[in-house]
């Protein structure tokens, strides 16, 4: 649950934190993204960066152009405006479809995840493609989404010894989290599939497939031919991500 009134926390003389709660929930996170977007749109004098996360927004400013007091006052009036807005105006997030080829070489740990949870591989795919996953925040590395909403029946511990290299696009599970590796990197997540989509490319506008506040729907691919077909389109820049509006 969000706090009744957001808290302002000191973060030095070049940033201030607006904390909306101490939990991981859609309600708290929704307030974070509403403020982050309003702060970016409002172009507050001296504000140079806004970092939305699970339950707070870090607002960075140039202390030669403004002061903490001025930034705080500007944020307070934005919060005031937001509190007067009707609820249905605030929920305008998009759902991004992420096609995944599950199992086989692309998801070498899918049998382990099935076995660990006492279900079949088909059930792993069904349970993983069912939910709408909120992108609570981005971090760790460019384009890496922190997703909420993994089914309790898919919770699986990390590998004891992380793999040295995991291919870009790998879809994995670590405890109650699921996510996608945007670039090849070492990692200990249990890999259940791979997407041909590119999650981050600094040469593209926008560089990131996902934005904090979006939702993700994983859609199963039939076979490697379908995967390669999309991969080709992604490579040539012809692929347009499938999106839908969320009610």
């Amino acid at each position: 649950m969000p706090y009744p009134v957001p808290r302002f926390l000191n973060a030095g003389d070049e940033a201030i934190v607006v904390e909306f709660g101490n939990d991981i929930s859609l309600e708290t996170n929704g307030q974070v993204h509403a403020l982050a977007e309003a702060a970016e749109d409002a172009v507050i004098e001296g504000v140079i960066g806004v970092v939305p996360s699970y339950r707070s927004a870090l607002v960075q400013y140039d202390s030669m152009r403004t002061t903490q007091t001025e930034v705080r006052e500007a944020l307070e009036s934005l919060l005031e405006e937001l509190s007067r807005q009707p609820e249905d105006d605030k929920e305008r997030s998009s759902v991004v479809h992420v096609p995944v080829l599950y199992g086989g070489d692309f998801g070498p740990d899918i049998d382990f995840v099935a076995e660990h949870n006492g279900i079949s591989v088909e059930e792993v795919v069904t349970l993983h493609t069912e939910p709408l996953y909120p992108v609570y925040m981005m971090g760790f590395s460019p384009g890496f989404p922190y997703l909420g909403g993994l089914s309790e029946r898919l919770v699986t511990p990390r590998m004891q010894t992380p793999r040295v290299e995991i291919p870009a696009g790998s879809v994995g599970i670590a405890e109650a989290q699921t996510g996608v590796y945007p670039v090849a990197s070492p990692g200990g997540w249990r890999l259940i599939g791979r997407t041909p989509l590119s999650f981050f490319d600094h040469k593209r506008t926008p560089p990131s497939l996902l934005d904090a506040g979006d939702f993700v729907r994983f859609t199963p691919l039939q076979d490697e031919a379908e995967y390669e077909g999309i991969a080709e389109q992604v490579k040539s820049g012809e692929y347009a991500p499938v999106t839908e509006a969320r009610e």
Partner: protein
Amino acid sequence: MTRDAFKVESPGPLTTVQDLGRYVYQRFGVPVSGAMDRFALRAGNLLVGNRAGAAALEFTLAGPSLLALRTCRVAVTGAEAPVELDGAPVPQWQAFEAPEGSTLKLGAATDGLRGYLCLGGGIDVPSVLGSRSTYLKSGFGGHEGRALREGDVLRAGRPQLGSVVKQDEPDPAYAPYYGIEHEVRVVLGPQHDAFTDEGKFTLLNSLYTVSPQSDRVGYRLVGPTVEHSGSSDIVSDGAPMGAVQVPGDGQPIVLMADRGVTGGYPKIATVISADLPLIAQARPDDSVRFRAVTVEEAEEIRWEQEAVLLALTGFAERPSGSSYSVTVGGAAYEVVDSNGRHLSLPPDSTRQVESAAHAVRTSTGEFEFDLELGLRTSE
């Protein structure tokens, strides 16, 4: 005319292109990066007539050797290191000219860790996601997304006439001395509530040693354990430069330019902006002592530091969009604004110009701007 400025003869241990960083894409997980010591970067840029945030070279431990491919205006700031132009010593924190064909050699740092080589017009590399800073881990920004190598050619950007306003004679006596014992001021928060009173007391009354496992991401400190009041895990949130995070082992880490956008350890305090250069210049085995101040005190200290920057360089950055006049003597000039419009300036004339985004074309058709040429700006 080519704007090739320098050929790298030897790159030094870690030399990258940095500006003031990449703030806008943090929401997509892209770290800020940028200069570790922003005071030194800004001072060097002002000295050569650039806007304070222009891209420059940041070197670590020891500097590069560069062959000047054209006459360049240069200033070397930050860590104290011998600077030699064709073998003759050149002072730091002062602008000088490196003539075409000369070799500029920067040696090993004797005080501090990171030096900055600023070039008139800035280092011309593509702006990636709104910044020219190098982010090594993902390999983008700066010079081809990597540290400099032997044989690289660096281009100079086009000088921006009127970026700075001369206020006074520069006085290098204001250059900082970093030393090996650093008193670093912090503002408590955002998560000082996650620590016991004893934990906070420990942080503010102990001597910490800089670990060799310190880099552009963060400075690891070794010393008395800072006690958490509860769990050492928090719901991950955003971290500014200078955040002092304390993981479960109780040993503080000061997060710096290449920090991840978010982190999951509680941040007991934040280093004030005026003291961040002390951390950036600290070497392994240096000692750090923290002292708490209020936000208002931190703001006051920063303004005092800005006064030092002005006294040191003699220049202030001109606010963008302000108008100023250009006075020329002897030769005819053309001023080209950011929209490509030309204003011809006959010899011995003065013209009012509107914005800082202007370049000057001499009668020989070359773009050139030099503070010493007699092209003066005044309010």
